[in-house]
């Protein structure tokens, strides 16, 4: 999801975005996932449009989700037209044709492919945080741009070691 928001931020000046909320993938009354228990994302499969609207609003509020948002109604028209469930990405070009058709989620749900399509047209967007040094620092410290993250951690173990 963070990937998607980043793509939106990078390309919103060039392309429009629309997120469509479809039927739940792992509701409590179907195939619930342990990770959803841990993250406290526990919803039964909506039986009414009101329930879908409520969950969609929970989602957008919880993550301050910036993308334009629409909800598939109980006829599942959008889901059926696009074979969307559980998650999927398409890009529609200016002529109204499918320009990019993402694979079926979750295994073939690849935001990076949509990013490539946008990058091919509008140029790649480079980010400050480098992905290259994997062992150097966790992503959190890399994004803050702190020049010397190590010294802030070291003081406490250092005196303890020297005291003995």
């Amino acid at each position: 999801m963070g990937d998607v928001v980043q793509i939106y931020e990078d390309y919103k000046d060039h392309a429009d975005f629309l997120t469509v909320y479809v039927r739940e993938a792992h509701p409590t009354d179907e195939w619930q996932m342990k990770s959803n228990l841990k993250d406290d994302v526990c919803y039964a499969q909506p039986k009414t449009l009101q329930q879908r609207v409520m969950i969609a609003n929970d989602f957008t509020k919880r993550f301050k989700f910036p993308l334009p948002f629409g909800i598939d109604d109980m006829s599942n028209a959008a889901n059926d037209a696009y074979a969307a469930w559980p998650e999927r990405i398409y890009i529609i070009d200016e002529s109204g044709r499918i320009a990019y058709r993402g694979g079926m989620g979750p295994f073939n749900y690849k935001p990076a492919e949509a990013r490539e399509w946008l990058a091919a047209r509008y140029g790649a967007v480079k980010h400050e945080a480098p992905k290259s040094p994997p062992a150097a620092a966790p992503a959190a410290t890399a994004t803050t741009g702190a020049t010397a993250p190590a010294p802030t951690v070291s003081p406490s173990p250092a005196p303890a070691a020297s005291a003995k």
Partner: protein
Amino acid sequence: MNPFWRWAVGIVAFLFVAAFAGLSYMAGSPKDAYGMVRYALPHMHRGTLKVGSDAPDARLVALDGTSHFHIRERTGARPLVLLFGSFT
């Protein structure tokens, strides 16, 4: 029951158990294998859309729960990145 049928039933039962065990391993647990077969596979479709197909329209509900708009209202001027998903 003659020996042929006994073997046939035995082999089918073995394949069934083996398939379930394999799926359980892939999915993480027997419960996940059941969930996948019962709840996921019936809803996952390859779909008929291809690159170059006309993008189908559908009417969506806005976050306010009352107003509506169409996917095709959002297309035309610029490419539209269309993302489908749910919370869970």
